[in-house]
C-alpha cells in the first residue's frame, strides 16, 4: 500500500530530452571552458599560470576597467535618451509618432557592428564626412576608441529603453496621476513623484539588458575600438590570435569575464526584484497638446534621435550603390558592389535563412516545453531550467562560440564546422526572448483547460498540442519575432564557429569590412536588412492574427 507508481508519460520524456540538451550544450561546455582556464597550455598540467599572466599585466587588467567604463557610460546615456524619448512620445502629441516608431524598430534590426562600420565610413580616417570637412580644412575628432564605441552602442541600445518605458507608461493608470494631482501635486512634480517610480521597474529591467548587451558586445569594439581593449575582444584575440591560438588563455579571460558578468547580473537582478510590482490599466494616459518653442524642441529631439539611429542603415544602403575603387568610394552610382559580392550573397543568404529557420522552429518548440515544465511541472529539478534564461545574459556570444568549439571539435560528438553547431549557438543565445513570452502566456492559461481536454479523452501530449499550444501561439509571437530578428543578425558566436561552407550574412559583412571592402560589405549588409524586413513582414502576417481572452 502507498507505493507511488512511477508512470512514464509524455512529460517525463520531454523532461529527459530537455535536460539532456541542457547538460550537453550548456552545462558541459561551460564546465569545460572554466576548467581549461586552469590548464597550462605548454605542459597540459593544472596551473594558475593563465590567470597570473592575465592579472600580472596592465595590458589585460585594463580591459576589465574599459569594459565596465563603457557599459556604465552607455547605460547612463541610453537611460537618459530613451526615457526622455518615451516620455515625450507617450505624454505629448508628437506629430508622426508611427513614423518614429518605424524608424526606431528599423534601427534595432541590424547587428550593432553595422553601426560601427557605418560610422567608420562616415567619420573614420577615410570617412565621407571626415574628407568633406578635411577639404574645408577642418579636422574632426577621432571616431576610434572609447568615444566611437559609446556612440555606436548608445544609438543602438537606447531603443530598448524607449520601448520598455513606453510600454510601462502605457500601463500607468491615468487616474493615479489624477489622484496625485488632486492631492496637490503639480504636473511637473507628478512626473518625478508618480510617473518615474511607476515605470522604474521596467526602466531597470531595460537598463540591465543594455548593460549586459554592451559589456558583451564584440563586433563594435573590434571594428572601432582599435587600441581601446575590452574583454570580449581579448578573448577573441587570444582564441583566434595571429601568433597561434591559445585556447587555455582565452578560457581564463572568459572565466574572468563570466565571473564578472554573473556577479553584476545577480547584483542587479537582486536590486530590480526588490522594486518590481505589477500594473494593469485599461485606460491610457491622454496625450497633451504641446505648443510653441517647447514643441519645436521636442520634435527636434525626437526626430533627431530617431534619424541619427537609422543613419547607419541609410549609409549602408546608399554606399552599397556607390562606385568603389579599392576600399574608397568614388563619385557615381553602380551595381558593382552587388556584382562582386553576388556569389557570397547567394550562399550566405541561403545559409542564414536555412539555419535561422531551423533555429526558430526549435527555439519555439524548446521554449514552449521549457516554459511548460517550469510553470506547470515546477519542482526542484525543473526550476533549474530558469538558468536557461540567464545563461546568454552572462555568457557572451564569443565565449559561447569558444565553449562549443572546445567541446565539440573532438570525439565523441564532432560538430565543429557543421551547420548544427551554429544552429545550437543561435538557439542558446536567442531562446530567452521566446521563453519569456511563453512563460508569460502560460501563466494566463488556466491549467483546467488542458485537464478538460484530457477528461474528454485526449492523451496528455495531444491535449497539450491541441489546446494549450494553440492558445499559446498568439502570445509567443512577440517573443518569437524578437528571437527571429536577432538570430539572423547574430555575429559574435557565428564568427567563431563558421567555416567556409557555413558562412552567414552577418559574418560575410564583417569579413568584408575587416578586409576593407566597404562596397561589398554594404551590398551584403543591405541584402541582410532587406531580407530581415521581408521575413519580418511575412512572420507578422502569419502569426499576428488574433488573441483569445480567457
Amino acid at each position, binding site marked *: 500500500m502507498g507505493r*507511488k507508481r512511477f508512470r512514464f508519460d509524455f512529460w517525463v520524456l520531454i523532461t529527459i530530452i530537455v535536460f539532456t540538451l541542457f547538460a550537453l550544450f550548456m552545462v558541459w561546455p561551460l564546465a569545460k571552458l572554466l576548467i581549461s582556464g586552469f590548464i597550462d597550455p605548454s605542459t597540459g598540467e593544472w596551473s594558475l599560470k593563465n590567470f597570473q599572466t592575465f592579472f600580472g599585466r596592465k595590458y589585460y587588467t585594463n580591459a576589465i576597467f574599459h569594459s565596465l567604463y563603457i557599459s556604465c557610460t552607455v547605460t547612463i546615456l541610453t537611460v537618459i535618451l530613451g526615457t526622455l524619448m518615451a516620455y515625450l512620445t507617450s505624454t505629448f502629441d508628437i506629430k508622426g509618432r508611427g513614423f518614429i516608431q518605424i524608424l526606431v524598430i528599423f534601427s534595432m534590426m541590424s547587428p550593432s557592428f553595422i553601426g560601427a562600420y557605418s560610422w567608420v565610413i562616415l567619420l573614420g580616417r577615410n570617412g565621407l564626412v571626415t574628407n568633406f570637412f578635411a577639404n574645408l580644412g577642418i579636422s574632426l575628432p577621432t571616431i576610434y576608441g572609447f568615444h566611437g564605441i559609446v556612440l555606436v552602442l548608445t544609438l543602438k541600445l537606447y531603443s530598448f529603453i524607449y520601448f520598455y518605458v513606453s510600454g510601462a507608461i502605457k500601463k500607468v493608470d491615468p487616474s493615479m496621476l489624477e489622484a496625485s494631482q488632486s492631492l496637490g501635486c503639480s504636473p511637473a512634480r507628478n512626473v518625478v513623484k508618480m510617473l518615474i517610480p511607476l515605470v522604474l521597474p521596467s526602466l531597470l529591467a531595460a537598463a540591465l539588458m543594455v548593460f549586459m548587451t554592451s559589456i558583451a558586445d564584440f563586433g563594435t569594439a573590434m571594428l572601432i575600438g582599435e587600441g581601446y581593449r575590452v574583454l570580449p575582444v581579448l578573448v577573441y584575440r587570444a582564441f583566434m590570435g595571429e601568433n597561434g591560438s591559445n585556447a587555455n588563455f582565452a578560457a581564463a579571460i572568459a572565466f574572468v569575464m563570466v565571473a564578472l558578468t554573473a556577479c553584476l547580473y545577480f547584483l542587479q537582478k537582486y536590486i530590480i526584484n526588490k522594486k518590481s510590482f505589477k500594473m494593469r490599466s485599461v485606460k491610457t494616459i491622454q496625450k497633451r497638446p504641446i505648443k510653441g518653442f517647447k514643441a519645436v524642441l521636442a520634435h527636434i529631439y525626437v526626430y533627431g534621435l530617431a534619424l541619427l539611429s537609422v543613419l547607419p542603415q541609410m549609409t549602408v544602403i546608399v554606399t552599397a550603390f556607390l562606385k568603389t575603387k579599392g576600399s574608397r568610394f568614388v563619385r557615381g552610382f553602380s551595381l558593382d558592389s552587388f556584382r562582386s559580392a553576388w556569389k557570397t550573397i547567394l550562399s550566405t543568404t541561403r545559409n542564414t535563412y536555412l539555419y535561422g529557420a531551423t533555429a526558430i522552429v526549435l527555439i519555439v518548440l524548446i521554449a514552449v516545453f521549457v516554459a511548460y515544465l517550469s510553470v506547470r511541472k515546477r519542482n526542484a529539478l525543473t526550476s533549474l531550467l530558469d538558468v536557461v534564461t540567464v545563461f546568454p545574459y552572462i555568457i557572451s556570444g564569443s565565449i559561447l562560440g569558444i565553449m562549443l568549439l572546445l567541446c565539440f571539435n573532438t570525439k565523441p560528438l564532432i560538430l565543429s564546422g557543421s551547420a548544427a553547431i551554429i544552429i545550437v549557438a543561435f538557439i542558446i543565445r536567442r531562446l530567452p526572448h521566446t521563453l519569456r513570452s511563453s512563460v508569460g502566456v502560460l501563466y494566463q492559461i488556466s491549467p*483546467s483547460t488542458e485537464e*478538460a481536454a*484530457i*477528461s474528454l479523452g485526449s492523451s496528455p501530449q495531444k491535449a497539450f498540442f491541441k489546446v494549450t499550444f494553440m492558445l499559446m501561439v498568439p502570445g509567443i509571437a512577440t517573443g518569437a519575432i524578437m528571437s527571429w530578428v536577432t538570430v539572423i543578425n547574430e555575429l559574435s558566436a557565428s564568427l567563431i564557429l563558421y567555416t567556409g561552407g557555413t558562412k552567414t550574412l552577418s559574418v560575410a559583412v564583417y569579413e568584408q569590412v575587416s578586409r576593407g571592402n566597404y562596397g561589398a560589405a554594404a551590398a551584403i549588409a543591405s541584402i541582410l536588412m532587406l531580407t530581415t524586413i521581408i521575413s519580418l513582414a511575412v512572420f507578422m502576417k502569419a502569426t499576428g492574427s488574433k488573441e*483569445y481572452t480567457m
Partner: protein
Amino acid sequence: MSKEIIIEHAVKRYDNVTIIKDLSLRIGNSELFTLLGPSGCGKTTLLRMIAGFNTIEGGTIRFGDTVINNIPAHKRNIGMVFQDYAIFPHLTVAQNIMYGLKEHKVPREEAKQRLEKMLRLTKIEEYRDRLPERLSGGQQQRVALARAIAIHPDVLLMDEPLSNLDAKLRVEMREIIRDIQKQIGITTVYVTHDQEEALAISDRIAVMNFGDIQQVGTPHEIYTRPFNVFVADFIGRSGFFCGEMEGEGSRRRIKLSKDYTLEMDNILPSASNGRVIVGIRPEEFCIAEKGMTAKVRKATYLGKYITYVLDFEDCSMMEDQESIEFSQHLGNAASLHRVGDTIKLAAYAQRINVFSPETKESIIRGVARYGQETVSL
C-alpha cells in the same frame, strides 16, 4: 454507460502531508452525489483522484468492476465540469462540444446527432457558432456541461461548477443541472462548499472534514439527524447545550436547567448516562410556559420568520458558540418579543439531537455515519 463508483481505503499524500488518510465511499449508479465540506477539507483532492488528475497513494477506486487506479485520466471516460468552465477559447461552442466526440471516435452522423441533442438540452442552440469569449458565465457553464456529457461518460464530475456565478443564476443553473442529470441518469459527483446548494440538488451528500467522511446520507437525514457535532454545526445552525442524562433503555430524561427536563424516547440503549451534548436548531424551540429562561439580545425580522439571538441564564452551554438563535414562524406567533425581553423556551424532544461528549457522535437511535438504510462498507 453510467456506473457506480466504489472507493475503498483511499489515501492521498502530497510529499509527506497526508490529506486523505483512509476514505471509503460507495456512490450508487445514476446518483447525484455531493461532496460537501469546509474549504481545504479535501473535496477537490478526492474529486481529482477520481478524475485521474491526482495520483492515488493507497486503496482502490473502482468504476463498476474496473479498478481505475492506474488508468490514465484520458482513458477513464469521465465527464468533468470545472469551476472556471475551462472552455477552449479558440474553438466555437459547437467545436467545443465536438472535441470530445472526435477524441472518442464517435461516427460522424452520430456525433452530429449528439451535438444537436446537447445544444437543445442545455439551451444553447443559438450560440453554436460563437467563440466562448462572447458568452456570459452561465452560457459558458452550459457549454461546459454539454461538452462533458456529450461523450456519454461513465461518471460526471463537477467541481464547484456554480461558484463563479451570481446568486440568482446559481439557483437557476442548479435546477438545470439537476434536471439534465435526472434526464440522462448519469452517476454524478458534485463538489460544493455551499450547503444550501448541496441540500437542494443532491440525492445523497457526503459531509467531509479534514479529509475524512463525517456523514453520508440524504439531505433530509443529514439535516435532521446529523451523525456528529461537526455535521450538526456545519449544516444549518445548531445551538449546543450541556445536559445531564439519566434513565434506562431508550427512554431517558435530559436535564437542561434546574427546572427544565426533556423526556426522550429515542436514545441509543447502550448510551451511558451523565453529561451529554444537546444540539437544538433555531426552529426546534418553541415558546412555552415551562422551559429555559432566555433574554433577547437581538431580533432580526426576515418576513416569514423572526430570528432572535438569545442569552440563556440558567443552563450551561458548550463553549465557543457565537450565538444561539431561535426562529419564530410568524404564521403562528402569538406575540413578538423585543430586545431585552425575557422568554421561556422549550424544545421539541422528537427533533433535537443528542451527542456523546467524548466521541462527539450522536446517541440517537438509528443514526449512523453511512446512513440509516445502508450499513457501513
